[in-house]
């Protein structure tokens, strides 16, 4: 389990007039064993700093990171290096050793801890098999495609049998097809070994594809966190809505509706409800006349979602509408404040 508690990281600023930049402010996240935990945010949100605080490549200014109850900040350099065998990392740029063969890249972390050569080699061959490149042992990284290089990097990260795998924008340099095959591999490994995976990304699709839990990072702050389906179907923060409904109008006011209207978001989860004439039914059944202010559809995992923002004229209409809509199967509705 990774417990990030009140983590703050400030950097000395290089911009004139500003002395410090707060990259992370009071971040608290708990990641359970076996999770594939997504940390998503725009560039500059502090994602990379956050993931580097987990293995102490960046020292937090304040707050703690506990891995299975151990406070990494209190470890000596030597103890920290030993701890890092359990928390390995893959990168956007793969970061393979270009002058070594793939096999030698994978044995690298084992060399660091003095594993006997034959044993390291055997383990590396096993891992090459696992990542689907058993014939690339003697090849050099320059001879591989980006996706293959990332597979070698994954094999290397797994060599010491870590409990946690940190992925820092691991698929951002790859094309969509390769991205999904790499994500599939990570998911398989998670299912097979129970390894905890922390995925840093700016791509919604990555979180949708493999994560079970997610935290949305915005301006160094956790805007919201929770179950992926919950967060993505009902984003409660402005940052969340920006990510989940990039095209929907409700994060730019005004939307199509009167300025004194109340707004609610309806989320449809499943085909049955999407086919029903829900808004007409609502007008007939409870007498609430609503106008459509914004609409979008989205595929999250194997579920289809549709999201509508409705405008109604009064607070009592809003309450009636919420009660009516939430009584329907696979439909949920929440009031939204347009300008927050």
């Amino acid at each position, binding site marked *: 389990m990774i417990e990030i508690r009140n983590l703050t990281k400030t950097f000395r600023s290089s911009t004139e007039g500003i002395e410090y930049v707060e990259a992370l402010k009071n971040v608290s996240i708990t990641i359970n064993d076996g999770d594939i935990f997504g940390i998503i945010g725009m560039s500059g949100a502090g994602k990379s700093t956050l993931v580097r605080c987990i*293995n102490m*490549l960046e020292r937090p200014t304040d707050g703690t990171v506990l891995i299975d109850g151990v406070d990494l900040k209190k470890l000596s350099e*030597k103890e*920290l*290096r*030993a*701890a*890092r*065998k359990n928390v*390995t*990392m893959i*990168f956007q*740029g793969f*970061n393979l*050793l*270009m*002058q*070594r063969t793939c096999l030698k890249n994978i044995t*690298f*972390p084992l*060399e*660091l*801890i003095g594993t006997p050569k034959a044993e390291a080699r055997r383990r590396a061959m096993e891992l090459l098999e696992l990542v689907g490149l058993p014939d690339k042992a003697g090849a*050099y*990284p*320059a*001879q591989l495609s980006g996706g293959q290089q990332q597979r070698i990097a994954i094999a*290397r*990260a797994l060599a*010491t049998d870590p409990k946690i795998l*940190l992925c820092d924008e691991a698929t951002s340099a790859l094309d969509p097809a390769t991205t999904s095959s790499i994500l599939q591999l990570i998911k398989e490994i998670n299912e097979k070994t129970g390894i905890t995976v922390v995925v840093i990304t700016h791509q919604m699709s990555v979180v949708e594809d493999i994560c079970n839990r997610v935290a949305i990072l915005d301006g160094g702050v956790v805007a919201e966190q929770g179950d992926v389906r919950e967060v993505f179907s009902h984003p409660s923060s402005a940052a969340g809505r920006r990510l989940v409904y990039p095209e929907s109008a409700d994060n730019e006011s005004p939307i199509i509706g009167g300025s004194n209207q109340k707004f609610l978001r309806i989320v449809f989860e499943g085909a049955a409800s999407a086919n029903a004439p829900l808004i007409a039914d609502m007008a007939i059944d409870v007498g609430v006349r609503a106008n459509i202010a914004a609409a979008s559809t989205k595929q999250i995992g194997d579920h289809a979602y549709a999201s509508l923002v409705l405008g109604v004229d009064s607070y009592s209409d809003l309450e009636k509408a919420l009660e009516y809509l939430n009584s329907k199967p696979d439909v949920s509705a929440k009031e939204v404040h347009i300008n927050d």
Partner: protein
Amino acid sequence: MIDSLFNGASWADAWRIIESEFLLATWETIYVTILSTAFAIIIGLPLGVLLVAGEKNGVLPLPAGLMKALNVIVNILRSVPFLILMILVFPLTRLVVGTVVGTPASIVPLVIAAFPFIARLVEGSLREVNPNTIEMAQSLGASPMQIIIRVMIPESVPSLISNGTIAITTILGYSAMSGIIGGGGLGKIAINYGYYRYKYVVMFAAVILLVVLVQVFQSLGTKMAIRSDKRLKH
């Protein structure tokens, strides 16, 4: 000077000198160059590593004052002209070799002149290593020494070889200059016969041999650098 090139007698005379002295002189030039380069690498390589690793953001940060001192020493030694340096290091040469003239004695000033140069070349090579690669090693729990020995140096081998080639050809040129203080080799022949005794044919022959040696070292070095670089798809 040109006249002597068309004078049959001077050709016969030159051939006699070339026949009797050039084999030894060429051998002396090669062994002085290789030995000096080897000693200079022994000092310059670790120094170059320190110049990179010891920085504030390096893998093995050293006290800022020490880094400053190392840089100043390297710069001073690099800025003294070799001819002056040979004379300045006489006391050290006498201490190490017992004499200040002769072929073995010329190795001492050559090493002193070459190691700061090599340190700077090594520094340049190591700086080419991608910082992300070093971060990768840190993330896997590598110690500063492991990063230096297993990442920084092996990853910059092709660059180290081509810089080593620059070093050896430069040292070859310096070794010719050491003919002035009695260091043996092709330089001494060129100076003694050409400059002091106006035997220009001998001088040109010595210079041509030096050029050939530089060519040989350079093309060998370039070939090795390319062959060693696994980033290239062979």
